[in-house]
């Protein structure tokens, strides 16, 4: 028997495969047994009610997808009344994703969702900070540090900071999140993108721009996961373009302790199970006793990260 269990900042997961926020909901319980997952991660909520963006909210681009859903939210109260109780029926840990436009709002929500039945909070700091001209908290080390300090003071639950690829200083941001009190890093959210329908001359998304997810994101998010695992000492949860067991192995070799599967679930609703089974079969075939043996095992010759980034010399 292969040991698939993983520890994320004191939280034990029976396996390293969980859904990515916004690509999962109670509805998937109609398709397979959600107890099989390593964790349950809910769609990001905000404190108040939000409508979300105009449609079309998704489109295809180059074999991947763009979305601009805009975080519609029924608000924290409705979430605590309806969603959290649903997940109490499972032993699988529940991770709640939250976001806020200001540090105060964010911190208040963080406190509010720190309730029984919630095992960890994923803090979506890739969201815009209205006090900073709309720039995401996670695009700068300084704003990352500040928001993480506020949030970690607001809850005693483990906080997973979800980073953004729209950033030129990923290792610094990872370090700043750790220093600010993050217990784990989720790497990463979608990358800002656009597509235009040349016949109608209109953007393919109602909101002009949206986030790229799926296969195209993988080499980018994998690089970030690697950078973060080397820059910070807290666990990294890889996310971006994962659709096969091989993808999971690649992320774990790069340093991720667990992974989140997003868009692949839209394409193959049972993708997370297929991935889990593939992962287990691969470990058996390779005679590896524990999935934890994969974490960070890439043979990188300890090349210096900054030097490598410099040598890319784009």
């Amino acid at each position: 028997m292969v040991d698939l269990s993983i520890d994320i900042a004191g939280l034990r997961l029976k396996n390293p495969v969980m859904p990515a926020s916004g690509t999962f909901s109670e509805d998937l319980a109609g398709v397979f047994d959600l107890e099989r997952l390593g964790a349950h991660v809910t769609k990001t909520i905000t404190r108040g009610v939000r409508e979300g963006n105009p449609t079309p909210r998704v489109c295809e681009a180059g074999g991947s997808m763009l979305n601009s859903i805009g975080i519609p939210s029924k608000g924290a109260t409705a979430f605590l009344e309806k969603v959290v109780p649903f997940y109490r029926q499972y032993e699988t840990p529940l991770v709640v994703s939250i976001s806020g436009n200001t540090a105060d709002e964010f911190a208040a929500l963080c406190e509010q969702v720190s309730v029984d039945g919630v095992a960890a909070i994923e803090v979506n700091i890739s969201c815009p900070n209205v006090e900073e001209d709309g720039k995401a908290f996670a695009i700068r080390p300084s704003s990352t540090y500040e928001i993480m300090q506020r949030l970690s003071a607001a809850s005693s639950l483990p906080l997973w900071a979800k980073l953004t690829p729209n950033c030129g200083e990923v290792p610094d941001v990872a370090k700043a999140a750790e220093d600010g009190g993050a217990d784990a890093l989720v790497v990463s959210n979608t990358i800002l993108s656009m597509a235009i329908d040349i016949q109608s001359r209109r953007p393919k998304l109602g909101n002009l721009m949206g986030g790229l997810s799926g296969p195209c994101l993988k080499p980018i998010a994998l690089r970030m996961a690697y950078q973060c695992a080397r820059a910070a000492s807290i666990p990294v949860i890889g996310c971006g373009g994962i659709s096969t067991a091989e993808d999971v192995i690649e992320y774990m070799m790069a340093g991720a302790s667990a992974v989140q599967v997003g868009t692949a679930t839209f394409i193959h609703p049972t993708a997370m199970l297929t991935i889990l089974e593939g992962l287990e079969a691969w470990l058996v075939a390779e005679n590896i006793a524990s999935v934890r043996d994969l974490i960070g095992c890439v043979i990188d010759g300890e090349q210096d990260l900054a030097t490598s980034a410099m040598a890319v010399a784009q």
Partner: protein
Amino acid sequence: MLQERQDTVAPDEFTAFQMRLEVKHNAPVNGEYRTLVLNAPKHLLDLCRPGQFFNLLCPQTGGETPYLRRPMSIYGFYPERNELHFLYKVTGAGTRALSVLRDGDDLDVFGPLGTPFSIEDHWRHLVLVARGVGLATLAPLALEANRLDRKLTAVCSARHPDFLMSTDYFRQLGAEVIAVTDSDGSSGLENLRAILENLIARRKADAFFTCGSNRMLRLLQQIGETHGIPGQIALEQQMACGIGMCQCCVRPFRRDHAVVNLRVCLEGPVFDIAEAIAW
């Protein structure tokens, strides 16, 4: 590439399945539409209800690279002969890819999905108003009405008599068929209104069922309100997940004097005509 999973779960616990089904038949109906017949297990077909849909993983072939699944109404489901039918129009990359599927090929389907039509007990006479691919969505309702022993009138509209599909099908099920076309002018709004008001006057309209078009929505909303006749409409919206997770498929509806966003894939695709908002 991700490998597809076959039934790993007990067939009776779940409401929707992702599975690869074999193509039995894929052929044009007329210049614009094609039918696709898949070989499906009985447990899947037993779950299907009129108005529901499947989210289809269109193959990446012949230079077409559809990525997201494509929603397609159930045009027919026949547990007794293991058949699942779709009626589709070739419009873009996904449907073009569907159109080249050959007998014996596999197609990855996910479903059945969505909220079906509902036929209330006291609705003895149903009226369908259908045009184009709308027929696909309404056809299984006719079968259900027949099964439940309700009377049925099908108002079928098309550009030209050549494109009138399924009229024979409706007649076989004992429906009265009223065919209208653009080419003879009979599909005009005023004529349709007259046809429907005539049905109402003859007490042959306890509820309306329609699909898609704005024009028809407005007409049925007016007539329904005037005469107090309820109705249901199946709507479309671009989808990704198909089961309520991603929230991309919302449309606005009037409910309790407010406008709310509902998901076409989960709260729909069938909605109360009175709540729907023309676009």
